[in-house]
Every structure is written in structure tokens, then in C-alpha cells.
């Protein structure tokens, strides 16, 4: 994965993520579980695309689905087949870069688990605006569950049900204005 070496190339070739904060389709494809794996149920997607000195995801995964870091700067490499989508890693990631996707949730909806540190927290059953990686509202999502225990230390986990075609788009949400 080319990263910082882009810095010395011509302007237009700069890594898009480094310019905008929005990962590209190629970035995403690189960490996406296979169709077969998605068909089997909940699985993590680790959207962490830069070598940084950080490794809590690795230490928090009890199933050794995240491969050992030779160097703390390694990017996490996830063995999707070992991952059962338990979300232990999700609330430990300081980058809030880990999401759980369950394409088997229902016939027309996928379930996404999102780390969330804002107020107000939505409640079960609420309909919220579903937001993509660029901050744009792309549809609606229903809040299935809100996990916010002391053990999560402030990083709540919000479960959203979204139409299947949005499962790889939605990574945030906005609580709708109360009118």
C-alpha cells in the first residue's frame, strides 16, 4: 500500500485520503471481506490505512483474527475467517476506525455497528440520518441497539439497520432534529 512516498510526487498524485480524510473506493476494497465471508454473518472491517504507532486492536482481539504486529507501526491485517464480529476491538480503537457489518441481519437490511462518542445518544427504534464517509446523508437508518456500558469507557456502540446497498457506505449517523 503506497503511503507517505506519495508526498514527493506531483500534486495531483497525492493520496486522496491524505488530502481529504475520505478513503477511496480502492482503499475500502482492500479491507473489505469477501462476498462469501459477508454471507456468513457479522465481520469486522478495519478502515485504518496508515502506518501509525498504534496497536490496541491487535491486543483486544481474543480470537487472534488480527495478525500479530511485527512493528507497532504495522497496519492491522484481519483474517476475516477467524473474525466472528464480536466487536471487542471496535471500542478499543482510538481511531474509531473499526466497524462491524452483518449482511445476514434480514432479507432487506444489513446491520452495522458504529463507534459513537457524541451526544445525544439515540434510542432503540429511532430513525436517524445515515451518513457516509464524506459526511453526506445517504438515507435513513433504524437504531437497533445502543451499547453504552461503563466497560466501554465512553465509546458507545450503536447498531444501525440499513438497506443492503448502503452497508458499505454508511459509517456515521446524525440524530434527526426533533420537530
Amino acid at each position, binding site marked *: 500500500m503506497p503511503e507517505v512516498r506519495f*508526498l514527493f510526487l506531483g500534486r495531483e498524485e497525492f493520496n486522496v*485520503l*491524505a488530502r*481529504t480524510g475520505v*478513503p477511496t473506493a480502492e482503499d475500502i476494497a482492500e479491507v473489505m471481506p469477501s462476498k462469501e465471508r459477508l454471507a456468513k454473518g457479522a465481520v469486522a472491517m478495519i*478502515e485504518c490505512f*496508515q502506518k501509525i504507532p498504534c496497536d490496541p486492536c491487535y491486543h483486544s482481539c481474543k480470537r487472534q483474527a488480527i495478525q500479530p504486529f511485527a512493528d507497532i507501526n504495522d497496519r492491522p491485517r484481519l483474517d476475516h475467517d477467524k473474525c466472528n464480529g464480536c466487536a471487542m476491538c471496535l471500542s478499543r480503537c*482510538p481511531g474509531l476506525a473499526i466497524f462491524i457489518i452483518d449482511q445476514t441481519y434480514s432479507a432487506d437490511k444489513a446491520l452495522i455497528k458504529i463507534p459513537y462518542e457524541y451526544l445525544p445518544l439515540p434510542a432503540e427504534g429511532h430513525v436517524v440520518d445515515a451518513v457516509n464517509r464524506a459526511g453526506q446523508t445517504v438515507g435513513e437508518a433504524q437504531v437497533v441497539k445502543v451499547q453504552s456500558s461503563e466497560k466501554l469507557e465512553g465509546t458507545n456502540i450503536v447498531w444501525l439497520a440499513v438497506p443492503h446497498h448502503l452497508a458499505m457506505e454508511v459509517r456515521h449517523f446524525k440524530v434527526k432534529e426533533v420537530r
Partner: protein
Amino acid sequence: MRYTEICIIGGGPAGLTAALKAAGLGAEVTLVDRNDYLGGQLIKQTHRFFGSKQQRASERGINIARELSAAVLNNDKIKVLTEATVLGYYEDGVVAVEQHDKFIKIKPQKLIVATGGAEKTLAFPNNDLPGIYGAGAVQTLVNVNGVKPGKKVLMVGAGNIGVIVSYQLIQAGVEVAAIIEAAPTIGAYWVHASKVVRAGVPIYTSHTIKRAWGDQELEGATVVKLDENWQPIAGTEIDFDVDVICLSVGLSPLTELLWQAGCKMAYVPELCGHVPLRNENLETSIPGIYVAGDVGGIEEASAAMMEGALAGLNAAKSLGYHAPDFAEQRAGVLKELEGLRSGPVGEKIRSGLAKVVL
């Protein structure tokens, strides 16, 4: 005159860890900080930290501050002076301190300077309008005093601080109109950037602030795009209606006391300013004066803690204190530091540090 074996100036992560390590070997320590709390910058850091398990990664800075301060306050080898500002260092090795309008002289055998950094500012027309703050000030207002700085903020600087303070502003219910950054790329970790972008804050790289406007107070700002040579491109101006501009354009090491002491200094851009030369034990060119943390080069709390550990261990050792596992402790800390600075984002630090070895 007060006598102490080791005096530590600064109660941030570097100073606190230095105190704990030195006291752990048996040395008697006096720790001085000008704030009425311990923890330095950490008490404003409500976000989870990066780093390794050993450096308490994934914990929130504020919790690390609480824990370290409690350990220091409960250690009877460590005497803590808060609301105490170190004003000067004299040739005879005396540290002059002002506390509650009283002048105190401390004569330590070893000195560890862990004073951290000071915020930089930026020159542009009207940068003196009320409503224009440094990011550190905004963070203190919001996270320490619980006061919103305004309704709508333009953040200048997309380094880790600019991005994290933007995140904390959104958490506090303040709107962030945009983050602008003169460099062509985001300096913050991309995961941080991604989380504010999805929360609706656009990041404009290759953009700078042209001018602020307003009569009695800030009413808005004009931002302009920069070309490859960092020159403004005419016709690319964007106006933002904001009542706060938050400048997050870096810190520089707070080194006055080291200058006074006559330490050999060097200007190292990679470390963000003038910094003291030091050896592997973090001892400066003046024997018995050690440095740790941001004062030796702006880095991170994780590195500051490790440097504090190193300076604390070495200062105590030089006074004759020892522990059976001293060599392992020291090697462990050095290994952690090397790991932290090893990747591509550590490259700047590595090249800076190479220039300040004694």
C-alpha cells in the same frame, strides 16, 4: 533555601513519570508546576490515545493524568508544589520559584526540566480580533472550564491537534465550519481526519487564511487556495461566517530555563524550534540537568512519558540509587521509544533527534 535530591520542573506526563521513576529507585524528589493541577496537557485530552499497551494506548489522556497524579501525590518520596512558577535558574544551581506571592529558592542536586511547549500563532490581517484563539486555549475553555468559545469555528491547521480539538468541539455541541491546512496533505493521523470528516467537517488542504473580518469582534474569515509554491491563487477565495478562529499551527518547546542555565541549544525545525542537545540519558551539556518531553522537541504524551522515565531513572542512578532490574527498566524504555518513533510518521522526529545528540 530548600534542598532536594532531584527537582523536576513541570507536572505533565514527562515530569510525573520522571518523578515516579526517580522515587521508585529511592531518590527524594521535588516536583514544581505552575498550574493548580497536575497532568499538564493531558487533562484536556478527552480522546483515546494511540500507542502501545505499555504506553496505555486506547486510554483517554485525562484518565492517564488522574492516575499518574494520584500516584505522585501518594508517594511520600515526592514533594509537590503546585501554583508554583519557576522563574529562573542561577549559576550556583539554585532554582527560583514563585508560589502564592512568595519567593522560594530550591537547591537540587539534579534538575529535570519537563516544561512542555508553548503555542505558536499566525500572522494575517485582523488576527487580533476578539474570537481568535489558539487551539490550546479553546481546549482549556471547553474541556477544563466547560465554556463554549462561540457558535461556529474555523479551524486553522490539520495536524493532530487541529483535528482532535475540532472533534472535541463537535462533541461539545459547537459547529466546526471547516478545517483548513496550508500543506498539501493532512498532518493528523488519517483515522482522526476521517472521523471529523464523516461528522460533517470538510478539510481543505492547500488553503490558508487570507484575512479575518469584523468590527468589534470576529465576524468571519476569507480563506484562499495555495499553488505548488504556497502562493495564493487569485479568485479562489472562500468566505466563512464564523465567530471563532482557532489557530492550531503547532507548539514550540518552552526552553527559557535551559537557555538561562547555559545549555547548548540548536534550532531544529523537525523538533519545532530551539532545543537542547542531550545524550542518550537525556542529560544536557550542563551536567546534572536533564530534559524530558515536549521541551526537548514536540512529540507526544506517550514519548513524553517514556522520556520522563528515562530521565528519572538516570538522574536517580547518577545519585547512587540503584535497583536490581535497572538495566532492564532502562532498556525497556529505550525499546518503547524506538518503537514509537520507528514508522513513517516518526521519520521527522528521528531526523530531528539525530541533530541533537551530544
